[in-house]
């Protein structure tokens, strides 16, 4: 009786993965941002007043990286554009401090997005001065009740404050405080001290409205968020599959070991971006043969994320290079972190070869030098003064960029490490 095609298991799995991938990687806007209700309402009210009443405003959205500033703005704009009055009237200009690195480029972009009359196709005519005069003239001619309001979104707002004289910021904020075309200037930034970057004239014209996105999630809410991020939506084509999936996800989140993993992650950072990278790594292990999420997936994902990057590099070194690292570690221990040079490291290595080693070949000095240079290239060792070296290569002072603990831990997992090397590393006296 049901006309719906029942999907095969494989199709279900791939569809589920696609849905979750869109949510976790492609940054699809959620229906409603999580735990950001009051900020959402504040921003929506502000923009609604600009769109409907023609009231000019300026606001800064401040929050650490990954806390959902762009996502919040996207949701608010989506709801704003669904209002009939705003849909036909509001003009939107989106700028990014990383893309528009200069006021000249920013002006061309504004003119292009507003489709002002000095744009033909995609090309903006006129010099910087002409473009500025043209835009200011256009905005000046408008008025509160009859012009279409313009919403300016400035992503990475703090970078705009580094432009020369802060011309663009001054002019946009000046328009927002004059009886001209109604504008709403929205800045998004992660710096808490952004107001100190503004010049006094620009700061006076800014209305000092700030919306803070500090995450005040408790751990229980975090686990809840994980569960909802991993669950399939109710409109999934195969309800039996989605019910089974959601059930398994709920059971997973109640397990002790998974809670440990999530707690470790939560302790490190509360924002959703890092959570999404963890969840993405675990979801990508799901396949037809492995069609539900297991705790092993989460464990593996957590291991990948929290692995120490340098320790992994160490696993790829040759035995000789590893011995040099250990020699440097001993030097650090003996001389309390003072910089060393290649000659000192070589002496230390020779001591090991003569006294303790049985398996390491007695390498010539140029070969050892080559190994040392490889470590320099990997930046595991860096010169103290990175300027012009007036000293011979062997006598240039260097520093090891590894911590004691990192070396020891890498040694534990080094594949087929000779025992005498290990013992040498563990010994207190070289």
């Amino acid at each position, binding site marked *: 009786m049901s006309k719906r095609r029942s999907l095969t298991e494989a199709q279900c799995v791939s569809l589920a993965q696609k849905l979750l991938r869109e949510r976790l990687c492609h940054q699809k806007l959620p229906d409603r941002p999580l735990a950001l209700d009051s900020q959402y309402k504040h921003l929506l*009210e502000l923009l609604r007043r600009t769109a409907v009443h023609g009231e000019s405003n300026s606001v800064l959205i401040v929050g650490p990286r990954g806390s959902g500033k762009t996502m919040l703005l996207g949701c608010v704009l989506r709801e704003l554009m669904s209002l009939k009055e705003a849909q036909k009237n509001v003009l939107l200009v989106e700028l990014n401090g990383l893309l528009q690195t200069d006021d000249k480029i920013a002006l061309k972009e504004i003119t292009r997005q507003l489709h002002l009359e000095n744009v*033909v196709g995609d090309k903006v005519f006129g010099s910087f001065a002409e473009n500025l005069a043209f835009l200011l003239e256009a905005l000046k001619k408008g008025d509160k*009740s009859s012009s279409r309001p313009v919403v300016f979104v400035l992503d990475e707002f703090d970078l705009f404050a580094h432009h020369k004289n802060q011309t663009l910021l001054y002019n946009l904020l000046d328009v927002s405080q004059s009886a001209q075309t109604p504008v709403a200037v929205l800045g998004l930034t992660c710096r*808490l001290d952004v107001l100190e970057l503004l010049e006094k*004239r620009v700061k006076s014209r800014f209305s000092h409205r700030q919306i803070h996105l500090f995450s005040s999630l408790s751990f229980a809410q975090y686990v809840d968020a994980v569960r909802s991020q991993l669950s399939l939506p109710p409109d999934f084509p195969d309800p039996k599959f989605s019910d089974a999936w959601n059930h398994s996800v709920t059971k997973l989140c109640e397990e002790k070991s998974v809670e440990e993993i999530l707690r470790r992650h939560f302790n490190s950072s509360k924002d959703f971006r890092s959570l999404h990278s963890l969840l993405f790594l675990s979801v990508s292990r799901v396949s037809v043969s492995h069609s539900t999420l297991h705790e092993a997936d989460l464990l593996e994902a957590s291991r990948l994320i929290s692995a120490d990057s340098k320790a992994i590099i160490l696993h790829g070194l040759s035995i000789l290079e590893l011995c040099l690292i250990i020699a440097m570690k001993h030097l650090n221990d003996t001389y309390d972190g003072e910089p060393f040079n290649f000659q000192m490291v070589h002496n230390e290595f020779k001591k090991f070869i003569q006294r303790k080693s049985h398996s390491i070949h007695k390498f010539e000095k140029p070969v050892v030098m080559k190994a040392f240079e490889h470590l320099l290239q990997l930046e595991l060792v860096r010169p103290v003064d990175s300027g012009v070296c007036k000293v011979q290569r062997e006598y240039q002072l260097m520093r090891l*960029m590894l911590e004691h603990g990192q070396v020891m831990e890498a040694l534990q997992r080094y594949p087929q490490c000779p025992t005498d090397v290990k013992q040498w590393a563990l010994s207190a006296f070289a």
Partner: protein
Amino acid sequence: MSRYITRLRMRRTYKWNGRPVGEDRKLKRKYYESMSISVEGKTEDATVSSGQYILIEGDDDDNPFVAQLHKLYTDDSGKKKTAVVQWFVRMCEVPQNKRKLLGRDPHPQEIFFYQDRSCDNEVDGETILGAVQTAPATPRTPRHATPSIPSRSAPARKPGNVLEEARARLHVSSVPESLPCREQEFQDIYNFVESKVIDGTGGCMYISGVPGTGKTATVHEVVRSLQQSAEQDEIPHFHFIEINGMKMTDPHQAYVQILQKLTDQKATPDHAAALLEKRFSAPAPKKETTVLLVDELDLLWTRKQNVMYNLFDWPTRRNARLVVLTIANTMDLPERIMINRVASRLGLTRMSFQPYTFKQLQQIITSRLNRVKAFEEDALQLVSRKVAALSGDARRCLDICRRATEICEHSGSQKNGSGLVGMSHVMEALDEMFSSSYIAAIRCASVQEQLFLRAVIAEFRRLGLEEATFQQVFVQHQALCRVEGLQPVSVSEGLAVCQRLGSCRLLLLEGSRLDLFLRIRLNVSQDDVLYALKAD
């Protein structure tokens, strides 16, 4: 090979419509609004009027010329009819080598504005064939672009209730006709400018004051009332122009803008400077006084200071009749950044706008609200006192009051309390807009981030310095993790935590290339960090 006209020529008769609309006795001309053309064999007359686009006999019957009719006139006898037109050309009339300048493919029926001194703009009226419809093509060529923002589909909604009305009046842009608390300054500037205008001499005045004290608004008010006086012929007419240092991309653009606003000419900066020099030096007995307002003067500074020198030198010329009013923020700007000869030309006519006191701020808000009762008395007092104590900036005060009305409206919709904005709303607005958010940020940071901050303070205490390397702090961090019973973090994770704190500027970091040896400083005071961490 000569062309043979194979079509029968239609005879056309021309007749004026209505009475003449103007007359020029010197040139003995009578101007008409429109003309009707009756063609033999056709029953209806065609009418052409000024402003319409018309077809004029061309070289060839199939391709008449297109033009826009500007004026129609006849001489004394009434026999000779002449039309003044603006020519347009079709793409086919443009020489081949110039067609590429357009940069795109033209519409087959597109016509272009044609301006050439060799071409006569006056033609015999009897060559007009008839009117033609034109429609603007999209996109238009940029040379004739007009700056404008499109209009709304329906007008903006008017304020509905008392709070909305108050909000509209408290917006910084609704500047009142006459600024309260600036009567003395208004009078001084008015007297200065009025005396210069009446005497027909020039002069300079320097106005200074911190942002938000009403300098530009007062000058505009002075000019407005002087213009009213001039309209009633109490004082001679004058021309007012305004430039702003921040609205220019380069100080030399000042010349371009002044020239454009004075004479509507466009020129390069050097040429504009030369033209202005000539204009202000040449004697012209009937010249109007020019009042020039230069806002944000300090941005017109160049190394040789020639822009400022010229701006202050021109008023000293006898025939210039230029009054320059300059506005900047610092009282000692002339002494600090100007060389002697420029500062001496600026002169000693200076005026300093003091920041508003709390009584003045209160008066400003009350006069803006006029009769609209939206605030409680003590709420207003609180705002004025707070802002006056900090900066005396009227914009700040108005913005806080507006935010307070929003908070009141939002809470009012939930509780149905009294409609007035009270102390609690105002305090919430002050809290929002004056607060420093570092403490809240620290409180909402993750466990490892808070631990890292503790480690930073512990290391500073140990070293007795305000700076430490990441390695040293990391050792402390590991120790703290052991004490708290948390799993120890790897160096990569520790660096990630450190970078996150650095990106919000809770910590000040060196470049991350320095790895373990990057130096860390605190951007917040140690006491604030400890207070924020203690409150848990």
